[in-house]
Every structure is written in structure tokens, then in C-alpha cells.
């Protein structure tokens, strides 16, 4: 579904990604694991069109999307839950969801989509008129996911799901994401520091270090790998 081929990415003058390639297969949850500043967010920003790679290509369902601007990427069928949620803080929960359905296509099915989000995250319904900036961390993350789902994406990109969340809240949201993956057949690409939680959710995993992919495979085999155990779980 998504193919990243040997992209090099610079932030200003600093090179952050070195010939990174990976694939996300349709219907899967695929994870990218790496520590802080390994290049995870830069990779997601390249895929979602916020920054442009210097070299290499990104394809979505066979279509070349490397040069497309961010708002076009949403139209093509990818939607992102950005790092730190990036909600519209001075707009209500409902308005945030409405803006999630900004695209013409999504706008027509807006009301139904909002009902669906409320079914997935009932707490958002009771917070509908509250400003997004006043929600708790977990509620904000739910809203960010809800907003991203409003455009009815084929692929959902999630950057640092666990950031600033209490373990129980995180577990709850992770369960819901797994459920969405199964019930809607929604493909998910998740980028995380929290390796154990992520490997339990995902079927495939990639490891990134200092801007380079250093390992990949099915998550079962990654969980058994001694090197990874040492690096990520400290066991």
C-alpha cells in the first residue's frame, strides 16, 4: 500500500534520513521503532507531505506522491495523528472533528462520521462543546485520532501514540486502535519509542537508528531477537 524507496531527508542543513526504505502492506499494523531523534517524525512528515525528501520516492497504491503537498496527501487517502496531537486548541471538540472532514468528499458524510467517532470514543461526545485545549492528555489523543479518521483514510499514520499518556490510558487507546484495524480493515503505520506496546499491536516492525533502517521483520521474530531485547527493553 505504502512504499518508501531510499529517501534522503534534510532538515535545514542537517541530514536526518539516510536512504530509508520501507513498506506498509494493506490491512496490517506496521510499526517503526526508534529512540528520540532517530528520524521517526521526519519520516512521517515526509510521507504526509510536510517536508520533501531530497532524493528517493514515496508511492501510495502505486501512485507517485513524493512531491504532493500535505493537503493533497489527505485527499489521496492518508491521514496523520501528529506528534503532540496538534489539535486546534481554541476550537471545540466538535469543530475539531468537523475540520477533520474538511475535504469535500468527507464533508457530505460528516454527520455519520461524527456519530461513528462518538461510538468509538464516547467520552468525546460528552466533551463536544469543550475547547480542545482543555481536554486531558488521553482525551486529546482520542480527539486527534478521531479527527484523523474523519477524512475516511485508507492509511492512518500515528506519530508517538504513547507521548505523555498514563499507562492505563495508553493501553485503552491501543486496544481501540487494534479494533479499528480489524473492524474497518484500516491499515495503520505507527511510529513509536515505546517498543513493547507497539510490537504487541503490530504485525510488522522496522527499527530506525540515527536516520537509518537497521532491522525489520515480523514482530514475533523481533520480540525474540536478542539485540532488540537489549536495545529496547533493557532485559
Amino acid at each position: 500500500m505504502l512504499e518508501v524507496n531510499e529517501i534522503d531527508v534534510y532538515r535545514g542543513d542537517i541530514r536526518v534520513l539516510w536512504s530509508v526504505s520501507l513498506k506498509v502492506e494493506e490491512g496490517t499494523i506496521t510499526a517503526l521503532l526508534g529512540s528520540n531523534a532517530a528520524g521517526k517524525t521526519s519520516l512521517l512528515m515526509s510521507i504526509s507531505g510536510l517536508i520533501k525528501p531530497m532524493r528517493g520516492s514515496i508511492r501510495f497504491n502505486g501512485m507517485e506522491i513524493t512531491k504532493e503537498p500535505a493537503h493533497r496527501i489527505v485527499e489521496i487517502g492518508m491521514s496523520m495523528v501528529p506528534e503532540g496531537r496538534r489539535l486546534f486548541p481554541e476550537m471545540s471538540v466538535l469543530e475539531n472533528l468537523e475540520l477533520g472532514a474538511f475535504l469535500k468528499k468527507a464533508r457530505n458524510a460528516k454527520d455519520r462520521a461524527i456519530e461513528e467517532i462518538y461510538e468509538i470514543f464516547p467520552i468525546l461526545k460528552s466533551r463536544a462543546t469543550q475547547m480542545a485545549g482543555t481536554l486531558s492528555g488521553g482525551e486529546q489523543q482520542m480527539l486527534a485520532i478521531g479527527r484523523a479518521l474523519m477524512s475516511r483514510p485508507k492509511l492512518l499514520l500515528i506519530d508517538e501514540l504513547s507521548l505523555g499518556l498514563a499507562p492505563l490510558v495508553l493501553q485503552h487507546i491501543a486496544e481501540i486502535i487494534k479494533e479499528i484495524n480489524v473492524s474497518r480493515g484500516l491499515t495503520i503505520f505507527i511510529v513509536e519509542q515505546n517498543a513493547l506496546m507497539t510490537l504487541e499491536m503490530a504485525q510488522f516492525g522496522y527499527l530506525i537508528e540515527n536516520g537509518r533502517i537497521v532491522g525489520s521483520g515480523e514482530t514475533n521474530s523481533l520480540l525474540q531477537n536478542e539485540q532488540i531485547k537489549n536495545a529496547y527493553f533493557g532485559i
Partner: protein
Amino acid sequence: MIQIIVYGVITGAFYGLAAVGLSLVFGVMKHLNIAHGSFLMIGGFVSFWLFHLFKIDPFVSIPLAMIILFVLGGVLYKGLFSHLDKLPEGLKINNSMLVGFGLTWILDNLAILFWTSDVRAVTPSYTGKVWNPLTGLRIPIVGLGVIGIALLVIFSLYLLLTKTYFGKSVRGTAQDRDAASLVGINVERTYLVFFALGAALAGIAGVVSAVNYSVHPTVGFEWLLKAIIILVLAGFGKVGPVFVAGLLLGIVEGISVYFVGTTYREVVGLVIFILVMLKRSM
């Protein structure tokens, strides 16, 4: 005293109109468009020529002035201001001021070239007519029109910003530009349309200025000063406070004329400006 307040309210409604476009564009896009006053001046001349040549009533010429300024604003944004959008916020404010300042110079001098530096006014049949709701209380008909237009603008902007998808996308873009593009908003196009809308609002204020006061090629800078005082008083990006600050400035100026005379009226506004700046920085 009531008479002074009535004139103050009319002046204030006009100040609000003059400042609202500047304030919204600054709040949403962080472009401090110094040329806003010159846009206003052009709106005034549009109204003047339409009245002078075709006898078109100034309040009727408002939509046409809006369209002309909308197009002009869009073209100037695309050609000049859009290049600044990639800069970080502080640099963007500074550079947009410089671009706007240069643009003011050009537009004002083009206006002198085409239309000479004569002071012109739009004088429909009802100019100078007053309405006497109470004995001793005089309300100019034109002033009623100014207040009406201001109310209409406030109401329309409120509907636009809170009820339409365009308005919501504008507010979203102002709050988080990247997040806006991640939900599919074409930020560049939103900026273009919004800047043009700001210019169209200057067009409305321009028409009103030409009928309520007068218009000449360098009048824009005078109104810009008022608009900036209001921007400082009201904060930016919100419609309501702009008009409240406009009314406040209008009434205070009106009262000050009563006490210190017309000569020092301008000083009062600037003193308020300095006091607010001192208070804010503490």
C-alpha cells in the same frame, strides 16, 4: 454630552471598520499589512469616481469597491506577501511591515499621479442632513449609515468565521498551520483568499471614509495609525474587541475635543496607545 457620544459612536464605528481587516489578517496570517491604509484610500477613490461619473450612491458602491479591492489584494498577496509565508513568525511580521511600507509609498504616489493630490468627498443628496430624535440631539443620516454598515460587517464576519467551513479552516490555520494542512486544508489558498478579504474590508472602510469624511491620496496613513492604535488596544484576530476598541477611541477622542479642542485630538489617541504599550510590556 450625549451629542458628543453620538458623534463618538459614529467615529468609532468607522474606526472599527478601518481596523477590522488589518486585525484579522494580522491575527490569522501574521502579516502586518501597512498598506491596509492605502487599500482603504483606493476604496475611497472607487466610491468617489463611481459617484462623480455615474452618480452611484456610495452605499451602493460598497460591493463594487469590495470586489475591486479583493482582486487587488489577492494579486498583491500572490506577488509580494506570499513569499514571506515560509519565514518564522517574528521575521514574517517585520518583513511584511517593510513590504507593506514600500507598497504604501507606491500606491499613494500612483494615486497622486492619476488623481492628483486634491481632497475629494462623496456628497450624495443626504450629506449634511440630520435626524432629530430628541430636541437638541442631532444624528447625521450618513452616520446612521456608517453604524449600519459596521453592524452588518460584524454580523457577517461572525457568521463567516463560526458557521462556514471556510471560516473554520481560517481559524484552524491560525491556530496550527501544519495541523490544518494535515486535515486537507490548502493553507496557501486559504491565506490568499483571507488576505484578499482583508483588502475588501479596507474597501468598505474606504467607501465609508469618502462619504463620512473625505479622501485624498495620502489619507490612508492617517487611518492606518488609528487602526494600529485599535490593534494594540483590542489585541488581534477577533472581530468584537476591534469594534469595542474603535468605539472607545472614537468616544474618547470626541470628549477630548470638548475639553482640549480639535488640535489635540490626535494626541489623545496616541497617548492611549503609549499607555497601553507601557502597561502591556510590564
